Structure formats: C-alpha cells, structure tokens
C-alpha cells in the first residue's frame, strides 16, 4: 500500500523463545494504548506464544530467553541464518539473566536434587551472543515496551536509535523518587544503564541491575559509597551477580 506515493515497508518480524519466563514476549502485547498501531507497523510472521501461523520468511528475529540445552543452540543458529537483524530481547537473552545463577552449582547434583534418578538434559546457561552474532541488545527484566517500540521505529522508518548512556539514578531524579540509599537500602541505580524509567526504586525496591552497566560507570566511587553506607561485600556480590549484566566485575 502506498502512502504519499511511498511504499509502506513492513518489516517481517518473528519472535522466538528459549530458556526463560516469556515475560519479555508478554511485554510486546502490553502498552495497550499503542498496541494497535504497534501491530500495524510490523508484519508478525512467527510468534508461537500468540499465533499458530508459522512463517519462516522473516527479516527481524526478536529472541527471548537464554540458551541452556544443545537443541536450543541448533534452533538459534538456524534463526541467525534466516534473520537479517537479530535482537536479543531481555536480560536472559543479553546476559543469561537469573537463569545463569544455576551455573554456580554442580549441574549433576542439581539434576539429582530436582529429578532424582531421572536426570534431564541441561548445560550451563549462556547469553545468546555466546553462540551467534547479535545485532541489537535490549536488556531489562522485563524489557520496557517503549524501548521495543523505538527499535521498531528504527527498523521501519530509520529513526535514529539512541541507547541510554547515563544510569538509572538520573531517571529516579527525573521522577522525584527518594533515593533508596537514603532509605537505608542498597541500590545499583548509580551504575546501571537507564531506559527503564526506574520503576523499582519508585515502587520501594532498590535497583538490582537488570539492564547491566551504564556507559563508563564510576565503579570506584560506587564501591566506596556502598562501603561507607555499611553494606557487606556479600550483599554487593549477591546483587551484582543476580541478572548477569555485571559478570565482568565478579
């Protein structure tokens, strides 16, 4: 269909899920006020969670979840071959997410504990980029639909895609949220990448760093602050290790 004699170009989008909770996929169906417009801007050719249509002719693959079994590696590689653009959607796809926490345990032991003498196939949980090239990363647990919309606007209309350089801390200031440190709580807001609009501190929970590091965070100053406020090494370690975005620090 032409609009002002310009051909309307709908990117053919497919959504795939691996190891995770599928919460990021659910965000695609959220933000109801723009849902109709969002779905009109793309051509959804494969999205198993909401559609029984199965197309394999897609340009953009949105990948949700981490990789934790050999068959997932094969499926992911096939998707990479087909997709012109592969987007890692959410902290599991970008960093391994909370599912990575199992890697700290002996997997045979873990299997015995959960499944007794009937173990199931599993391997250490890894991020998508560990196996295939990733074109765009949209972190968050879950992802922020605004950010997904900006990715789509970028792909459909070539609008520039800006990523946030500054930390969550600034978004708390923008919405007048009282600092969680001032409430006596630990918060990774000073070092975590913004773009979520800081819902956790506003809801009464210090940041757990699901979006990974901001650009050039001042770690030295942050660690000094954490120590000065009386938090232990273990508390800090637990938090930095939670979503996998700060893996390089541990």
């Amino acid at each position, binding site marked *: 269909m032409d609009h002002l004699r310009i051909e309307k170009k709908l990117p053919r989008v497919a959504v795939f*899920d*691996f*190891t*995770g*909770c*599928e*919460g*990021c*996929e*659910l*965000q695609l*169906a*959220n933000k*109801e*006020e723009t*849902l*109709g417009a969002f*779905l*009109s801007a793309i051509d*959804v050719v494969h*999205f*198993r*969670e*909401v*559609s*029984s*249509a*199965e197309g394999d002719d897609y340009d953009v693959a949105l990948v949700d979840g981490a990789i*934790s*079994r050999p068959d*997932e590696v094969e499926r992911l590689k096939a998707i990479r071959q087909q997709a012109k653009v592969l987007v890692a959607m959410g902290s599991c796809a970008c960093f391994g*997410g*909370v*599912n990575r*926490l*199992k890697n700290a*345990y002996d997997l045979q032991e*873990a*299997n015995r*504990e*959960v*499944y*007794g003498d*009937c173990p*199931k196939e*599993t391997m250490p*949980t890894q991020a998508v980029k560990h196996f295939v090239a990733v074109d765009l990363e949209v972190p968050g*647990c*879950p992802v922020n639909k605004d950010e997904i919309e900006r990715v789509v606007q970028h792909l459909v209309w070539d609008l520039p895609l800006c990523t946030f350089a500054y930390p969550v801390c600034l978004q708390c200031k923008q919405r007048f949220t009282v600092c969680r440190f001032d409430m006596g709580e630990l918060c990774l807001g000073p070092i975590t990448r913004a773009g979520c609009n800081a*819902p*956790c501190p*506003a*809801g*009464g*929970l210090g940041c*757990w760093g699901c979006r990974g590091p901001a650009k050039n965070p001042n770690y030295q100053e942050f660690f000094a602050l954490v120590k000065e406020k009386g938090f232990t090494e273990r*508390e800090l370690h*637990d938090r930095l290790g*939670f979503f996998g975005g700060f893996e390089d620090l541990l």
Partner: protein
Amino acid sequence: MSISEESRNRVNLNVDVRHLARVEGHGNIKVRVVDGQVVEARWDIVETPRFFEVMLKDKHYTAAGILTARICGICSIGHCLASVRATEDAFGVTIPEAAAKLRLLAKHGETLQSHVLHLFFLAAPDFLGLPSAIPLKDVNPEAFALAARLKGLANRVCDVVAGRTTHPVSIQVGGMAKMPDVQTLLELKAGLERGCRDLDAAIELFRTMEIPDFVRETEFVSLKGEREYAFIGGRLLSTDGVERPEASYRVMTNEYVTEENTSKWCKLSRESFAVGALARINNNYHRLHPKARAAAVPFDLAPINHNPFMNNVAQLVECVHVVYDSLRLVDELIGTGPAPIMAEVTPRAGQGVGAVEVPRGILYHDYEYDDQGRVVRANCVIPTTQNNANIHFDLKALAEQFATEGMTDEKLELLCSMLVRAYDPCISCSVH
C-alpha cells in the same frame, strides 16, 4: 458387528503437534488412532528446565521473591505472593491488614490480566477460525479495543499496586513497600467501573463460542473458600473430599518424575487431578460475587462441572468476580486512609509454606531458612505441573470420543489443541 462399529474400525487418524502455539512454553501433542482404536495419546512437556529450587539455595530472604517472580512472566505477582507468604510463615510474621488488601488487589489485577490475555488472545482465535488475535484489529476492531481496554485496566491495577505488572517490586516480606495515594485509587475506581461495563460486552461476545461437548470425571483441587472466594492462603480442598491445612500441600500434590517430561506429574485420589479457574468455581461457587454467579448462568456453569473446555467460561466468570471485588477493595482502601503496610521482620531458622491461587490454579512455595535468613531448601509446586497429567489423560478420552467416522486429522488436531489451551498451561512455569 454393527454398522457403526464397522465404520469406526476404518477410522485412522494422526495428530503430531510439536511446540503447540498460543500457549506459554513448549509442549507437544501426539495422538494416533489405528482402525478406530486410540493407540497413542500423549501430552509431553519438552521445556528446558531452569532449576529454580537449586538457584534459591543460599539466597537471602529479600531476594527469594524477586528471583521466583522470574519463574513466570505471566503470573509473576502470584509467584512473588506465594514466596513472601512462605517466608512470612517461616519467620512468624503477620502482615498489616491494609497490606493484605493491597496484595489481594494486586492478585486480582494479575488474574484479570492473565484471563483476558488467555480468553481473547490465546483461546478466542480457535472459536473465530483465526491463527491469532492480531487480525481481530481489522476484522472486529470493537472486540480488539475491548480486549485492549480490559488488559490495560488489569495492567494498570498491577502497576499502581505492585509497582510493575510483570515482575512486581512493591510486594516484599512483611507487607507492601508502597501505598497508592487517594487520587490514584479514585482513578483506578473509575477504570474498574468502566471495566464492569466492558465485561458485560465480553460476556455477550463469548456467548457465541461453541464449547465442545466433552466430559471426563475429574478431581478438582483448590483453596477452600471459608469466608470469601479464596485466593491467598487457607485450607486446601478437593472435590473428592480431601481437605488439608496449607502446610500439608505435599499430601495434595504427590509430585513424581516421568521419563518423557521435563515437568513433573501429580496425583491425589485418582491417576490425575485438575486445578485452575474451573476447580476454584467447582469448590467455591457460592463464595463468588453475585454478579459473577449471574454471569455463569447463561453458560450453564454450575458445580461440579467436569468439562475441561468450560475452564474458558470459568475464567470469564472470575474476571467478573475480580473486577467487582477490586471495586470493594479500592473503596475500603480509600476509606481506611493512611495505615501501616509493613510489619517488622526478624529472620529465624524455620520452615514455611505459602499457597496462592494464581490464574492457572493453586501454587505452593515451601522454604526452609537458616538463622541468617538464607534459604537452605526450597520447593515450588506449580499449577500447570499439577494439570499436566490430567491434560494427558483428557487427551486420550477426547480422542476415544471423537475418533469416529468423518473425523479428520485437522479437526482432531484443532480439538486436541483447544483442549490443551483450555487449561491455559504455563509450561515454562511448570518446569521452572
């Protein structure tokens, strides 16, 4: 041999669905009918296991609810609620009354969100002959707008009360971290009133859907509604007459591992049982809001109903219940004014259980803590884990009933898929 038997003997059918669409997670259906005999009928879960019970070990109690919310993207509020309840039980904490009301309100928001998502986006396309609800925005824009408004309302309730709709932040051990202000509650009230009218329209819309005529006698398990239609904590009840306290959840679930599935299976008085909206209504019909009971009438939904496809209707009826009950809660919260919402929490060594009715049925979290408030042992029993064996045995009975002359592979595949979808399975949850 009679003519009908003879014609039945010529029926050969094959259904092989890998990664069923329009359900959360990865499951396969396999049905084979040879010469009129069902030789195979399977529901298998192939989702990757994540080992949450292992990941929970050694975690501080403040992290348990944040971690276990990630078991499920759809019912994260339910997981968080079961988690903090188990911890509060272990530490002997009683939460303030206003916090309990806020938690129930958040729960209602999630129930509405999940049921609307399932009814309009996952189940309705089967009844309309569409691959998904996406074309609905062009072929029936009013219905699409209706679904979007109801889902938007549900998400608004969760955002306002729990801080976020997926992976809540304000539900914490001891109570709630935040009380919405009166202005926000008044706005919520206006939204809920609009929601009541939208639900009337939704009921009209779903009255046209044809429920397959299929019955298999089933045991249904849920919380027992003693004073109200129960969602958070209390005694456990089955339609076969088993009743236990919350702490004895293992007696009600009896999890076991099978060779073919990454999800466990459960049983109680029979080879399998069912949980979910239909189970809750079968057990607690008389505790439903009068408006919800009225909504059940045109669909002939009354206890004990043994048609699993009626779970769709049961979800619709629960939508009515949770919207009207949310109005009550919002009014009470506005009337209460500022009130304590967080109790003092002192960790201690011990064990606790939390049972919560999440959209797909009863969920249990069970933690053992050391005296530093770190998890020593954890166990989570998920609604879909409890339903998987029942879906499996339903499929066999369904195939036996419908493997008659005139049946095709396509028609049987649709019926089997609709049966599984009626349970609204949350498969990644069931494996966790």
